[in-house]
């Protein structure tokens, strides 16, 4: 049992990192008022680009960097369409997911057979070698890949950046009230571009982590909807970085549980009262595919609950989300 829980936690951390990276990018972009539904496509482009680079050069970090860069290239298209041309953000985002999926399937078909040595597992610097022996959580927390630690570090950076730096606060202002921000001398266009580009970079990093650390291979469509989960995660976290940490680990746990659900047995013994009624229900709820619906259902319920029960300022949906901004000119 202890071994099972330790393994589960280890898988949770890995699954959570993908969601954390992609979710942070989405959060920054949405905070500036631009919804990015292209995360899935940007992740795929980052995953393939990172993988090919690593195969050709042997360097994970170069691959990771190329992944980030390619995510940003797609994000630049999104920024140009949504901010400069004031196009519909939903259409542009869905289009970019379609484009990223198509491009990576098209150009990645020859790379499916390749194998790489991905990011190595390492103990956390300095204290890791002592703490890794802690039962159950030690391995999960203190022996991971460098990108796992990087994602957690970046979360702190993003939280500080958004809520405690001038640039970050200006970004939030742009997402809440662009007219006001413009009047105050903040460049709405520049900040939105920056936010969307950072968001794309994070999505690319999430994809590169997926192919270089999580799976260590390339398969077309390997993100398997995680980009959409990241969009859902931001709503779940109500646009707050700290809640996103909780959400990412919760969704990561669901992801890890679902993969391992076959080896869990929560059914009652045949003689227990009501076993005949409860056991089929439990078995049904533990089916991998049914467990796969939980993150989506949880998000819908949280979103509906939050909208119905709280005022919109508490919900913290950026007020100008989905609205393009045109500067009044003479």
């Amino acid at each position, binding site marked *: 049992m202890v071994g099972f829980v330790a393994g589960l936690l280890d898988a949770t951390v890995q699954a959570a990192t993908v969601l954390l990276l992609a979710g942070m990018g989405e959060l920054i972009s949405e905070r500036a008022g631009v919804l990015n539904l292209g995360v899935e496509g940007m992740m795929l482009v980052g995953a393939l680009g990172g993988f090919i680079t690593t195969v050709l050069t042997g360097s994970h970090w170069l691959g990771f960097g190329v992944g980030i860069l390619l995510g940003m290239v797609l994000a630049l298209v999104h920024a140009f369409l949504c901010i400069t*041309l004031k196009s519909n953000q939903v259409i542009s985002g869905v*289009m970019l997911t379609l484009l990223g999926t198509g491009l990576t399937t098209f150009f990645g*078909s020859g790379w499916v057979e390749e194998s790489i040595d991905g990011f190595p597992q390492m103990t956390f610097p300095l204290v890791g070698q002592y703490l890794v022996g802690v039962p159950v959580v030690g391995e999960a927390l203190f022996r991971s890949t460098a990108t796992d630690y990087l994602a957690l570090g970046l979360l702190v950076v993003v939280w500080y950046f958004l809520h405690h730096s001038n640039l970050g606060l200006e970004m939030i202002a742009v997402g809440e009230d662009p007219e006001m921000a413009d009047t105050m001398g903040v460049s709405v266009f520049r900040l939105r571009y920056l936010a969307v580009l950072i968001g794309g970079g994070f999505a690319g990093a999430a994809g590169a982590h997926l192919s270089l650390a999580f799976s260590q291979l390339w398969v077309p469509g390997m993100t398997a909807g995680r980009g959409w989960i990241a969009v859902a995660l931001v709503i779940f976290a109500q646009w707050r970085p700290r809640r996103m940490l909780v959400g990412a680990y919760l969704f990561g746990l669901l992801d890890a549980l679902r993969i391992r659900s076959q080896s869990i047995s929560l059914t009652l013994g045949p003689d227990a009262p009501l076993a005949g009624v409860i056991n089929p229900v439990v078995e049904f709820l533990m089916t991998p595919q049914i467990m796969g619906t939980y993150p989506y259902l949880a998000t819908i319920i949280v979103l509906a609950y939050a909208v119905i029960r709280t005022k919109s300022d508490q919900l913290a949906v950026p007020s100008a989300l989905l609205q393009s901004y045109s500067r009044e000119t003479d």
Partner: protein
Amino acid sequence: MNVAVHVDAREDIPAWLAYGTPVFTVLAALAVSAVALVVLGVNPIAAYATMFVDTLVTEFGLTETLTKAVPLILTGLAVYLPLKAGLFNIGAEGQLVAGALAGTWVGLNVPLPGLALVPLMFAAAAVAGGLWAGIPAYLRAKWDVNEIITSLLLTFVALEIQSYLLRGPMQGGTGNFPQSERFSEAATIPELVSGVHAGLLVAVAMVVVTYVLMTRTRLGFEITFVGSNHEAARQAGMSKFYVYLLVFVVGGAFAAMGGISEIAGAQGRYRAGFEPGYGFTAIPIALLGRNSALKVLLAGLFFAVLFVGGSSMEVAFGVPAALVEIIQALVILFLITAEFFKNYRVGIDFDRGPSGAAVEPQGGDD
């Protein structure tokens, strides 16, 4: 000398732009996709010739195209109708799956002769798809919960349920494939002409119904009014709640009919991995055809040609069928770019002096 770019909203859109935009964007998308073909060492002209000529000239190509167009037109309508009311249904895929599952269940379990069974399958699909779409619709109409996110998330729920049912309770046939039992003769949609099933009639009928609804009825006018200005519509005494619920539920029913048409008409059984992305392709279809339901029909046919031509190109040149996805995405990309140039006039101004005369270069300090 200063050069300034200025952007002005056009007061009226010239006819050549209005009609030329869809054609031009498609050509531009094909031109850019040609780059990908060249990278693979395929002659793009030969490839496109295969893609379009073979598809439109051979009997096989034509029947395949008409068959493929059925779910595309119906999911296109599923996005088009809510769009008219100002709502985004990006979950047509989930509604299609939910409906197809319900219709398949009826087809496999209800003992009725074909004349009664097939309509019942369509009805069951429409109800299931309508209910599935009803969830985001109700949340949006009642509490303003964003329908984009909820309809999308429900797509993934529907896909998981599909995968569960076809590996469990609905699994049939021989072997361990996640698929349903094969449909009986009675549960199969009859052929209209050789190779084309009667689902095409349903699709065309729904286009006509939508067209009449939007252009000839008071309800259609209310939908357009709510879509263009729901505040004014409210003051005019129109119910946003009712309109929102209606367009989404009817849209979901359309998508569902597309799903059961494809399963019971073209496939013969429900296979897992039936995630053809019709619901996502529906978005460019609805956008290309957003002026009228008849244009949705044309856009659906066009994308059917792309899909069928894509597979013949795959066979003839070994080009991955994913190219079709790239072309689709590029069509939308250029379409929304063209939208901008359609609605705005972009001019470049060379700085002029106060008198209006062009300023001559002044000395050497430029």
